[in-house]
């Protein structure tokens, strides 16, 4: 109950009208940052960090964390409307969100995504409020072997169930791993596959690739198919929010599962991106409508958003309690604490009560405010699809190019983006899946370095992956998920053989 008293104190800190204004300014900026691909939450917060130099620490963190909430919400908008993930963690949202928009259900998809985000954040903040000290200790259990186990689980949860031929999935994934390996190798400190080129030093950024593969690739496809958005006839009215909400309660099991996955990944700190992929994969496996995933299922939009937002929010927990950032944005916020003259780490909860509880209270209020801001704009965003394609397509291309440039301030990245656009188009035409490539590109180098760190620590013994109950159970679960489709296919075939035989 001490937590409740502290929380009420936190709301008291928020009562300052200036703090409320900072909160709304932060949310609005965050949504904008989320909408613009390339300008991610971490960059956005880093750019605005020096502006907060003269504010009080409480106001500063309220504004910057509100930017973060805004970005988490905003990432879904372009994913659904134009198949361009504004943030890495919204890639999984495109899988069903964009097909929904093409069916004329953009409003429904947006509402589902925003509400999902809110549910995820709310679950995570409850966790922060009441279980912070207990949960925080969990993060310390994670060594290299445990990190690799989590990445392996993400891959297996996502790969085990593709409808595409296994050979295509594997080749797309291998291409992703190869691209992820370009640049400096963190384990040996050597350059790989840069061929002496300065431009290749930074490797292939996931964001640049995704903007090209999804955004530009989609525009190329649409151009071929008749220069018009499919979702043009979208019926837009304010009731869509209410209608969608009525459908959501039946997904509560999935929401709970996604929220748990999200919190787990945020705390450990695996991050929001693996959380969203894993949650999508799990939902596809366990949902009754699993077979319709990828064709425009509302559930496929809600689940990754719940997980991403839960992970994004709970990533603040190890930052506050241990001084370990759970996400890139949290890392920048952590730097901010020093700039404002605070010492992050285990004693923050004791020494800076106002700051910590003010922040936690602002997570509650910020997300409610964020939900209101984005929901009221659903009809406006959905209406964008009514603008003729010939007008909006060049605008989208320009936004994509600006986004690709912003990631590293590099002109060549625009060309890289265009090349990825062509690859995305070819993949679609040849019916290769894009998701394994993207997943390998975003998690490939992290999985590789944690695997090699684990091998260094164990001096080459694979037994490290079963050396304690935590890592052993995650790895085993991952392997079971990987082979499960095979097992179930074999079982189905056996059953299938028996039935016709019986009929004859």
């Amino acid at each position: 109950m001490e937590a409740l008293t502290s929380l009420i104190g936190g709301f008291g800190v928020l009562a300052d009208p200036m703090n409320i204004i900072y909160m709304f300014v932060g949310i609005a900026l965050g949504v904008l940052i989320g909408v613009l691909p390339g300008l991610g939450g971490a960059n956005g917060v880093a750019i605005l960090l020096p502006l907060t130099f003269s504010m009080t620490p409480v106001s500063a963190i309220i504004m910057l964390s509100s930017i973060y909430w805004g970005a988490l919400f905003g990432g879904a908008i372009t994913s659904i409307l134009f198949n361009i993930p504004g943030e890495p963690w919204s890639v999984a949202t495109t899988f069903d969100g964009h097909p929904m928009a093409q069916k004329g259900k953009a409003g429904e998809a947006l509402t589902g995504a925003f509400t999902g985000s809110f549910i995820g954040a709310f679950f995570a903040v409850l966790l922060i409020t009441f279980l912070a000290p207990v949960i925080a200790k969990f993060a310390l259990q994670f060594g290299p072997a445990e990190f690799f186990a989590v990445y392996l689980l993400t891959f297996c949860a996502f790969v085990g169930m593709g409808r595409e031929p296994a050979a295509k999935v594997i080749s797309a994934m291998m291409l992703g791993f190869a691209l992820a390996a370009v640049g400096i190798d963190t384990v040996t400190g050597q350059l790989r596959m840069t061929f002496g080129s300065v431009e290749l030093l930074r490797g292939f950024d996931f964001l640049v690739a995704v903007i090209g593969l999804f955004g530009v690739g989609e525009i190329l496809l649409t151009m071929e198919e008749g220069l018009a958005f499919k979702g043009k006839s979208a019926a837009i009215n304010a009731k869509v929010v209410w209608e969608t909400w009525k459908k959501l309660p039946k997904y509560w099991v999935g929401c709970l599962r996604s929220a748990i996955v999200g919190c787990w990944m945020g705390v450990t700190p695996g991050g929001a991106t693996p959380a969203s992929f894993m949650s999508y994969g799990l939902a596809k496996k366990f949902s009754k409508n699993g077979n319709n995933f990828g064709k425009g299922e509302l559930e496929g939009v809600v689940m990754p958003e719940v997980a991403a937002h839960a992970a994004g929010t709970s990533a603040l927990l190890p930052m506050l309690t241990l001084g370990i950032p759970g996400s890139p944005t949290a890392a920048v916020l952590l730097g901010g604490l020093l700039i404002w003259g605070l010492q992050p780490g285990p004693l923050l909860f004791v020494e800076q009560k106002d700051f910590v509880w003010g922040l936690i209270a602002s997570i509650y209020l910020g997300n409610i405010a964020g939900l209101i801001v984005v929901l009221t704009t659903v009809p406006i965003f959905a209406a964008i699809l009514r603008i003729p394609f010939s007008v909006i397509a060049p605008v989208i291309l320009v936004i994509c190019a600006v986004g690709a440039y912003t990631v590293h301030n590099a002109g060549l990245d625009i060309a890289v983006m265009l090349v990825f656009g062509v690859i995305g188009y070819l993949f679609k035409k040849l019916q290769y899946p894009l998701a394994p490539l993207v997943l390998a590109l975003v998690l490939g180098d992290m999985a590789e370095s944690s695997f090699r760190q684990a091998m260094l620590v164990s001096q080459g013994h694979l037994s490290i992956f079963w050396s304690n109950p935590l890592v052993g159970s995650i790895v085993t679960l991952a392997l079971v998920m990987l082979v499960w489709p095979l097992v179930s296919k074999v079982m189905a075939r056996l059953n299938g053989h028996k039935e016709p035989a019986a009929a004859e």
Partner: protein
Amino acid sequence: MHSAIAKIVRRGVAAIAVTAALAPAMAHAAWEPTKTVEFIVPAGTGGGADQMARMIQGIVQKNSLMSQPLVVINKSGGAGAEGFLDVKGSNRNPHKIIISLSNLFTTPLATGVPFSWKDMTPVSMLALDEFVLWVNAKAPYNDVKGFLDALKAASGDQIFKMGGTGSKQEDQIITAAIEQKTGAKFIYVPYKGGGDVAAQLVGGHVTASVNNPIEAVSQWRAGELKPLCVFDYQRLPYKEPIANGKSWADIPTCKESGLDIEYLMLRGILMPPNATKDQVDYFVELFKKVRATPEWQEFMQKGAFNTTALSGPEYAAWLTKAEATHKDLMEKAGFVAK
């Protein structure tokens, strides 16, 4: 006739050139930026160099120290090579500065990417970052001697694991130096950032680290880590108690504890090649003003920095020496790219 005219013209040109060269030198600090100045960070967002750069940006903005905006840009590709090559390639561009860390010396040696501080114009050293030998608070030893004895006795599964940031960079160089001095062996485990390393040490996944003070101070205060020695030539000056009544000043130097190793990391500013004296002077003055602010001094104290600040020939001499030291250390450790 022709040649005579040519000679006069040539002389005239030479005269103009001489006056042009003298004029700016006579007017004191005549140069000022005329557009946005890019502040390159050859490392990712959230790290030590990035924090310092954004701190400086904040101080400059708050105290209106510049008439033009200062914008921080991260170019971290290839262990910072991307940022340094950008500055090296921006000949005579005075609207670009870069904050350096040890990768100025280590990256070219480890990767073979061609750049050196001599390809740029040194502006000033802002501070030196310290390295401290940290172990988990639960470790049975409380001093360097106990640590080294345990290190030498360890074998098999118990071999000490040193967690550090990056590969063939400063953390691994110090690790290699300890190995050379003591004859013992570590398993060096590279991580992405200093925060990760501190967390891994608290969780018991590695045995020791050489984190910068700022990366591990919060875990020290919380009683989860303890410092054994500092790799400086003198004890730190900060006497304010941090944990259990102990302050930074109470940490012995590694040298006085019988581990004769000194290592400090540069936090300094460089700008593109062929910058004029006025342009360099402008930035030297600017950073002098930044260092005088109370915000900067508080930052120095929080991060327990060595506040040595140099510019001009002293800075160049320091860079020359540091480059030679790194070459020597890395050659001995076998980290130099072939």
